[in-house]
């Protein structure tokens, strides 16, 4: 019986992959009628950054990015909403390994440097806010594992401010652009590059915060509330 189930599942997945592959094959046969890269190349100067991916992310499709950061913040919020304690610190997760501790002294600064570089590089070659933020968060994770106390990670106003900072700035820019008479999210002439840089910087910080918060959040405890209608 069990075997039969597995077999059917396998068949189903194979069929699915088959259809998918077929579709891919058929599609790859014919050229796409619209070529965005062309359009992109034409409008790249106006976007204010040299690197097309960054241009798409933060100018042409900046609305996507705005919402995407929103998603990230939501995850962060939902994460810390699980917390029932004053500090997100979880001593159980500390490993005081002397070697790790020693290495950190070297690694953490190095990683911070790398993050900075990635951020700066974003404008003209691969890199950008998210990559930088990820590296930053990673260094945070290392510190955490290395047992360096991180008391700033309380579900207090500071943490929440940190979560929201990048998103807020991005949003403010968007609105400012709207107030400046352009459409929502349309950067005024010439301001594109500096604005994008500012946004990227704060985004980096916030992304790192969110990822770190999600890593350390929901420390374990027995707090819970009864289901609706069950007095308790």
């Amino acid at each position, binding site marked *: 019986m069990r075997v039969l189930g*597995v077999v059917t*599942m*396998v068949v*189903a*997945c*194979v069929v*699915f*992959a088959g259809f*998918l*592959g077929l579709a*891919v094959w058929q*599609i*790859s046969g014919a*050229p796409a009628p619209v070529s*965005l*890269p062309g359009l*992109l190349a034409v409008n790249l100067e106006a976007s204010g950054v040299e690197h*097309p*991916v960054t*241009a*798409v*992310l933060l100018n042409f*499709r900046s609305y*996507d*990015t705005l919402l*995407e*950061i929103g*998603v*990230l913040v*939501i*995850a962060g919020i*939902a*994460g810390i909403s*699980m917390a029932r304690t004053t500090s997100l610190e979880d001593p*159980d*997760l500390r490993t005081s390994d002397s070697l790790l501790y020693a290495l950190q002294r070297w690694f953490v600064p190095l990683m911070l440097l790398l993050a900075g570089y990635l951020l700066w590089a974003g404008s003209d070659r691969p890199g*950008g806010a*998210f990559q930088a933020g990820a590296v930053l968060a990673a260094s945070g994770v290392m510190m955490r594992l290395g047992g360096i106390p991180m008391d700033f990670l309380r579900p207090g106003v500071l943490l929440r401010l940190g979560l929201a900072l990048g998103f807020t700035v991005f949003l403010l820019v968007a609105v400012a652009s709207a107030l400046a008479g352009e459409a929502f999210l349309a950067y005024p002439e010439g301001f594109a590059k500096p604005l994008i840089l500012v946004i990227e910087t704060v985004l980096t910080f916030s*992304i790192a915060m*969110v*990822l770190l918060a*999600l*890593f350390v*959040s*929901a420390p*374990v405890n*027995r707090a*819970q509330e009864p289901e609706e209608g069950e007095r308790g």
Partner: protein
Amino acid sequence: MSSQLLYAFAGVALCGIGLFGYIRLDHLLRKLLAFNLMGSGVFLVMVGLAQRGGEPDPVPQALVLTGIVVAIAATALAVVLIRRYYHLSGRTTLAESGPEPKNTPKPEAHPEGAEV
């Protein structure tokens, strides 16, 4: 077929495998990993299919970047939920009821059992 299409087909394979894992596995973390596998597959298809002409197309790359962030956010949230769920119920699957798992964590005991 152009070499870029290889990525697309790799993505197709990943999707298939991921789907299988997703419906087959019960352990929530494994399910989650399967989901991420599928996600990578989708991203590969997106990029690979778009740049079949040879020259890379930055738009899908940007989309994939966005997609990755979203996927990470979702995954992280899922992990947080699963972790707390495991701690409160001692379960690592969505099974309504059934035999309690071997090592139900005691409040004081180390919460991150080998289960997770």
